[in-house]
């Protein structure tokens, strides 16, 4: 074995040395034989000639020895590559077209793969990420929730202490904190984590120590903080002395105990944590809201994770946790909060179940998964189309090279060798295409990131355009697959060349066969591009629909931002005062016409919901919960929402006795049907404490408008004055401006700095920008699918043109005869166009049913139209027919200009 390896090594890397040795050996042999013959009495000349004759050709011996060597295969490969490069070099035009096509195809695919990989496929950068599970409770929870996939703190403790499937569990809660550093304040994302967080994830520390289980015992007792590596680099300039120092987090002095390993930004992709704080500091980190100390079971707020014990699968763990959950639910349903519930509701509650999700899962992934897979599928189709064009080109080339192949076969090349030779040429082309494609992908990813995923305060994508090992591997696979996709068929056809006729004269038999094959390829291409055009049409019209619809109020001339003075340690009274003074201050700012305040942001994807019931209502509360909001007096005026009846709030509506609400028409339809809604009363359901359900009087009615996003049908909404509340935290400001709202951004920042330099302004942007951002995925998908659809049509048209041009060239003689016999130019155009029309018709015939069937797959991506929208399908078919007609007309026109005399003299 070792000698074999050494032989291989020698053969590959010491070829010249071996060849010299062999020459020497053969010379020695010849001399020894000659010497023997001379001893037998021959003259030196005679002996030399005789020896030569006996030995045969030196070169033949040398070649047969070389063939025996272990590296001979590689030798021949190098030969093939050299020959392939020489051949390709002789047709630079063909190379240019092939490499460009491949670079576009592979580049687009690599770029999309890179996005898909980084956003959807990649697992968390932690130890054994596939063994990490997120524990969620499914079913009606009958309580308040901070978001999907959360559980209550007591539920987390119960699961942690009683399960038998996890080697450990931790939980976390994402929030924003205000960091004081020097003399400026910044709001950053923080992750509140339980003590076992770093240990179970298996995260090392770049500096200092992690948060430990001992930090997890007593609330408020551990004012410590761990920094993320990137945040430590940018915010603290990689200052190694930071460990042990105190920084102000929400105006509390917290000691920095460590810096996490590079690349770790918490467990939620797209929401990178800058600082990690023990969850025991919840009160300090989220002032005036506490689910930790009051241990409410009807408040879901932490995301719980567990690491599976060795040998336990996700399915086993999920099954094993179900009885545990059930026993906890049995206990919860006996709590006072459930006393007024019907038996049916209790039954329903006890049916809740555990669902385990992969630990790397998150909302962003779920949201981006379908659109990104869709785009990957589209780019894959484009690459397939490009391959079809290349296959067609190569088939034509193979026909033209029949003579060359015949000669090679005649002098002893095997057919396998010719197939290999042609495949090597394809690999050279796709290799060059892949290299160029990677460069294109780099540029494309940068552009995509800038255009669609630009950094936002809420979600920060950390998508890198730099190709990594996975992307390189992908490009390599794409290169081999495409080579075989477009190269194998032409290669096999090429090797089937019949020697005798091909050498004697150019035969047409093979050519006719390859033309039929090429026609089929073009038909397939046309069908595929119709598919892409229909998809693109549907997605572009979806975007148009969303943009045209609007939320139901004028969005231009609106500026919005968020502040949270409570993070600066301001008391409720101070915060309330802050909001009131700021509203008055901004009202007097030049260029501002009105200022609206709202505790919940609108068109931002989420909402505060709670069950309500009409006063005096007997029976079970409705499942659907209306969207609620607390607002300032001028909110409706600032947003340009008219009051249909009644009045808006005034600052006089204060006091515990005055519980007022403004509701929309959907709310009236749903909860207060019949008669004039003004003066009617309803109650907010409080399952925790049914005695605390104040009566609320409806004083105003507004029209329906969208709340969470542009896709929804306007939900039932109820608005309360914010100053009726007793707890004050964050507030969203909406400023209606007289001129372009962007011009007011800088003056506004300056005014805010003067007003209070310690309270950072977060997410300052125009409402149009916010809406644009909320549609970023739709825009990404629509514009890319339009580009790919156009590219596909172009490729199919080029394919059609190529085949038609070739067919016309072959039929020159026939056309000449027809024209000599009296066919007009129009007749000739008709003949050729008919040939093109057959292919287009075949493509449409196959494409339309396919498109109608496959469009169903993107139903969930669409808005305001049916996947089988006839207008879109018709439009796509028309575009394709026009492109096909144009591609067919050029060769047809050329055919009609044939000079009959010249054509007949040809050949």
């Amino acid at each position, binding site marked *: 074995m070792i*000698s*074999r390896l050494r*032989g291989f090594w020698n053969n590959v890397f010491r070829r010249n040395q071996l060849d010299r*040795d*062999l020459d*020497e*050996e*053969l010379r*020695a*042999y010849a*001399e*020894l*034989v000659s*010497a*023997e013959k001379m001893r037998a009495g021959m003259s030196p000349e005679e002996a030399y000639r005789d020896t030569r004759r*006996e*030995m*045969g050709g030196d070169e*033949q*011996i040398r070649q*047969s*020895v070389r*063939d*025996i*060597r*272990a590296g001979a295969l590689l030798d021949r490969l190098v030969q093939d590559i050299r020959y392939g490069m020489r051949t390709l070099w002789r047709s630079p035009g063909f190379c240019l077209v092939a490499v460009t096509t491949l670079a576009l195809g592979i580049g687009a695919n690599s770029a999309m793969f890179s996005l898909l990989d980084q956003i959807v496929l990649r697992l968390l950068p932690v130890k054994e990420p596939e063994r990490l599970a997120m524990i969620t409770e499914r079913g009606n929870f009958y309580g308040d929730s901070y978001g999907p996939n959360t559980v209550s703190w007591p539920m987390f403790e119960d699961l942690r202490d009683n399960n038998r499937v996890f080697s450990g569990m931790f939980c976390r809660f994402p929030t924003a904190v205000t960091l004081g550093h020097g003399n400026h304040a910044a709001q950053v994302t923080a992750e509140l984590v339980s003590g076992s967080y770093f240990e179970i994830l298996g995260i090392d520390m770049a500096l200092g120590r992690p948060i430990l289980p001992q930090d997890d015992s007593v609330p408020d007792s551990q004012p410590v903080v761990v920094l993320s590596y990137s945040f430590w680099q940018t915010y603290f300039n990689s200052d190694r002395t930071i460990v042990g120092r105190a920084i102000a987090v929400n105006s509390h002095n917290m000691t920095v105990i460590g810096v996490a390993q590079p690349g770790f930004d918490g467990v939620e992709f797209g929401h990178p944590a800058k600082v990690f704080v023990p969850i025991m500091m919840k009160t300090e980190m989220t002032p005036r809201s506490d689910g930790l100390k009051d241990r409410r079971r009807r408040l879901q707020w932490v995301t719980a994770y567990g690491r599976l014990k060795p040998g336990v699968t996700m399915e086993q763990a999920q099954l094993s946790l179900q009885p545990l959950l059930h026993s906890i639910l049995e206990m919860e349903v006996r709590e006072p909060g459930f006393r007024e519930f019907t038996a049916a509701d209790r039954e329903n509650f006890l049916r809740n179940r555990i669902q385990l999700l992969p630990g790397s899962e998150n909302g962003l992934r779920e949201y981006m998964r379908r659109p990104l897979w869709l785009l990957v599928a589209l780019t894959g189709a484009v690459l397939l189309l490009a391959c079809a064009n290349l296959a067609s080109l190569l088939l034509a080339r193979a026909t033209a090279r029949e003579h060359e192949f015949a000669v090679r076969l005649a002098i002893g090349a095997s057919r396998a060798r010719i197939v290999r030779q042609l495949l090597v040429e394809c690999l050279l082309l796709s290799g060059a295409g892949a290299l160029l494609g990677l460069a294109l992908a780099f540029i494309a990813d940068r552009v995509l990131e800038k255009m669609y995923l630009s950094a936002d305060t809420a979600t920060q994508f950390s998508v890198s355009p730099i190709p990594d090992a996975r992307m390189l591997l992908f490009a390599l696979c794409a290169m081999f697959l495409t080579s075989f996709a477009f190269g194998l068929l032409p290669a096999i056809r090429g090797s089937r060349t019949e020697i005798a006729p091909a050498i004697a004269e150019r035969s047409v038999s093979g050519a006719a066969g390859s033309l039929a094959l090429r026609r089929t390829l073009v038909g397939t291409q046309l069908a595929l591009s119709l598919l892409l055009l229909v998809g693109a049409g549907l997605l572009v019209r979806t975007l148009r629909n969303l943009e045209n619809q609007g939320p139901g109020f004028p969005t231009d001339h609106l500026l919005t931002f968020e502040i949270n003075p409570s993070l600066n340690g301001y008391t409720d009274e101070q915060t309330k005062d802050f909001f009131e003074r700021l509203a008055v201050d901004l009202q007097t700012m030049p260029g501002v016409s009105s200022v609206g305040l709202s505790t919940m942001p609108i068109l931002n994807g989420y909402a505060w919901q709670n069950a309500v019931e009409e006063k005096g209502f007997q029976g079970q509360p409705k499942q659907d919960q209306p969207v609620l909001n607390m607002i300032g007096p001028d909110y409706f005026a600032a947003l340009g929402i008219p009051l249909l009846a009644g009045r808006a709030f005034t600052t006089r509506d204060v006091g515990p006795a005055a519980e007022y609400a403004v509701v929309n028409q959907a709310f009236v339809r749903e909860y207060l049907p019949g008669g004039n809604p003004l003066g009617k009363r309803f109650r907010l359901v409080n399952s925790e404490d049914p005695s605390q359900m104040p009566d609320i009087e409806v004083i105003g009615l507004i029209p329906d408008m969208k709340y969470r996003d542009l896709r929804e049908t306007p939900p039932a909404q109820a608005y309360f004055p914010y100053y009726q509340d007793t707890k004050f935290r964050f507030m969203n400001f909406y400023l209606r401006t007289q001129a372009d709202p962007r011009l007011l951004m800088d003056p506004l920042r300056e005014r805010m700095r003067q007003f209070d330099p310690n309270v950072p302004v977060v997410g300052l942007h125009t409402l149009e920008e916010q809406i644009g951002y909320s549609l970023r995925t739709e825009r990404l998908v629509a514009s890319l699918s339009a580009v790919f659809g156009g590219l596909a049509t172009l490729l199919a048209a080029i394919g059609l043109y190529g085949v038609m041009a070739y067919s016309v060239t072959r039929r020159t003689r026939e056309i000449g005869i027809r024209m000599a016999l009296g066919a007009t130019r129009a007749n000739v155009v008709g003949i050729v166009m008919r040939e093109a029309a057959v292919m287009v018709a075949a493509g449409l015939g196959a494409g339309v049913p396919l498109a109608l069937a496959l469009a169903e797959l993107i139903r969930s991506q669409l808005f305001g139209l049916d996947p089988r929208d006839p207008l879109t399908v018709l439009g796509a078919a028309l575009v394709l027919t026009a492109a096909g007609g144009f591609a067919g007309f050029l060769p047809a026109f050329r055919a009609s200009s044939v000079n009959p005399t010249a054509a007949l003299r040809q050949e």
Partner: protein
Amino acid sequence: MPIPPSDLLQGTLDVLILKSLALQELHGMGISRRISQMTHGAFDVKAGSLFPALHRMEQAGWLKSEWGESETNRRAKFYSLTKAGRKQLQTETERWERISLAMAATLGTN
């Protein structure tokens, strides 16, 4: 009477070369002459089949080679058996004995 090379049975050349090297190391021409001598001139191995065979057998690990001086003081490559080569010779010898016995019995040369 020499047997034409094309009539050489598959594997015959290998066993002849192995046998020729059983006692001493030889260079290319030496092997050719030794085979001729061992088979009383029945096999005359030419360079065209000898050298590919030698290189193939070296690659297979049965032979090893080194440069040395020939009897006429010419630099020449000498081949010798490796351990694997000796084992191969043994196996081949046994195989050939069985074949020749079977052939003799079949053809009735008693």
